[in-house]
């Protein structure tokens, strides 16, 4: 997994609540059997004016100039600012894959859907929770300041604005540790093989019907 320590990047504001994973990456792209290549189809229905299908040459499609990701001032953004319940809906890990493939390294929102939040950490994408007031302020500052950039420091659990204003965020100690070090969950779990086997042996006695 890609590690995350500190990142400074351009902020793109997506001012909608309940952005679902169908919007982040529409279903037709889920037919891929790869983890990569989803970036051109991030927010596909909003980004393009014509319907998209896998295998299309996306550089030739009609882009929607109204959509925030297509505005020249946000080209190359790597921090996505969003509203409540970002990533609701399906469990598709293609959502964080698409965000990462596009170049997004961190999302800032007041809340996330549980599965999306969890999936993000498995892929080196940092979902930051800030309170609604802080997020409101960042939306205002982003709109008012061309080239608005934020610095995210995972070790310090802080987001720093160009003014020097700093917002602290909470994060689970285990997830922070894994992300800072780019650790592979499976490798960590396999350090406990004996405990898993002991658990299984006990359960086979207690509830053998679970093992059919």
């Amino acid at each position, binding site marked *: 997994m890609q590690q995350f320590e500190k990142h400074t990047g351009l902020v793109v504001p997506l001012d909608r609540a309940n952005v679902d994973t169908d919007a982040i990456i529409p279903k037709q792209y889920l037919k891929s059997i790869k983890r990569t290549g989803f970036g051109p189809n991030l927010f596909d229905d909003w980004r393009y004016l014509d319907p998209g299908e896998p295998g299309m040459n996306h550089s030739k499609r009609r882009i929607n100039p109204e959509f925030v990701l297509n505005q020249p001032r946000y080209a190359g953004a790597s921090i996505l600012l969003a509203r409540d319940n970002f990533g609701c809906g399906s469990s598709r890990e293609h959502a964080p894959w698409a965000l990462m493939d596009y170049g997004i390294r961190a999302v800032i929102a007041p809340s996330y859907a549980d599965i999306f939040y*969890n999936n993000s950490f498995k892929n080196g994408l940092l979902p930051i929770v800030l309170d609604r007031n802080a997020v409101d302020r960042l939306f205002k500052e982003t709109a008012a300041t061309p080239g608005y950039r934020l610095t995210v420091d995972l070790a310090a659990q802080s987001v720093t604005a160009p003014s020097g204003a700093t917002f602290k965020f909470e994060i689970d100690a285990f997830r922070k540790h894994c992300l800072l070090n780019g650790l592979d969950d499976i490798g960590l779990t396999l350090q406990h093989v004996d405990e898993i086997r002991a658990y299984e042996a006990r359960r086979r006695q207690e509830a053998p019907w679970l093992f059919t």
Partner: protein
Amino acid sequence: MAGKTLYDKLWDAHVVRQNEDGTCLVYIDRHLVHEVTSPQAFEGLKLAGRKPWRVAANLATADHNVPTTDRARGIADPVSRLQVETLDANCRDFGITEFDMADPRQGIVHVIGPEQGATLPGMTVVCGDSHTSTHGAFGALAFGIGTSEVEHALATQCLILKKSKNMRVRVDGAIPSGVTAKDIVLAIIGRIGTAGGTGYAIEFAGTAIEQLSVEGRMTVCNMAIEAGARAGMIAADDKTIEYFRGRPYAPKGELWERAAIAWRELKSDADAKFDKEFVLNAADIKPQVTWGTSPEMVVPVDGIVPDPEKETDTVKRGSQQQALKYMDLKPGTPIRDIALDKIFIGSCTNSRIEDLRAAAAVVKGKKVAGNIKLALVVPGSGLVKTQAEKEGLDKIFRDAGFEWREPGCSMCLAMNADRLSPGERCASTSNRNFEGRQGTGGRTHLVSPAMAAAAAIAGHFVDVRELR
């Protein structure tokens, strides 16, 4: 000390080890696999030279991409075909049981799990699909996972998890005639909101939930995720135990007797404490119809499309305005005046035999309205389809002008050829009304099977209670 909730009991029974920060290694009894979220996980296993920890814990089927028309021709879309063939190959390579497209037991993963008795009370059940919460209906801890976790579950039979908080949603009283499990869960989502259950495991309880059949309970738990909760669950009772008797994967003989005794304990203690509780009165629930692009945007069938100007929360108002624009609806429009183009009866929410019976009862002897371009019935599994045909339901649907299809996810998410065209409006028994969910530009209204059937006959929404 306070008693334990059902969730506490299921959780405690599956903790392999607990770290100091509260993160746990949790054992997974059953892993369901489908073609969309598994190929990258199998690839990860292969690259790392790993094997499934316990092959027999996995059960696979192809459901999202499969055509619902004549299967003999295979899958026309080469990208879909490759994904399904990849699942077949991975199951073959790793020795995992798969109900492939030609298998009579093939179907939607959340329909075939309980149907086979492969998912049982007291189990932890995971699948790379958010509607895995369905299996909580019989006192199991079941939740959707991402592809990284699919690989983790395959490789270790465990997941690294932190415990959720406990929520109980009680629905009390007799269920009014014409009101179904779907209406109950939509009313719950309307009440607590699409993020109301985020961070919680929800237990659905109360006398109305107890009245529901096991299949109805599956409909309720299926949509726990639409209220933000990864897991929804309902205590096991006599109905639950009877439901599993004789199913292929269920225990037999002396083991069955032992299991049944254990399953009777799968309920919250009387003095259990919940972090949050909601109570609804069943008598207040009417047939529900969603009007917007989030399942929380829902009103009773005798209601009207709401006016965003009356919403005080600015973020919510903005969402409602966007939703009305996308849905091409005006505030104040009576729900019954909304005309439809297509009807979809199916999905892991509502494609089991009782759902098809309820829809057929409404349709029987009538014809689909002239303005309906397509009315689809897609059974949840090959076995549901066979049962329905034995009961003559296929004939009732066909005579009325419905198409009777092969099992799969179909137009719930339109990964196969079944989809809405831009601007088309659909009454659907599925679970999500998100923008583009049933096809780019398509407009979805979520309803119960009986309500979808009634809308097909009338060409617009009608109150199913008035038909009886």
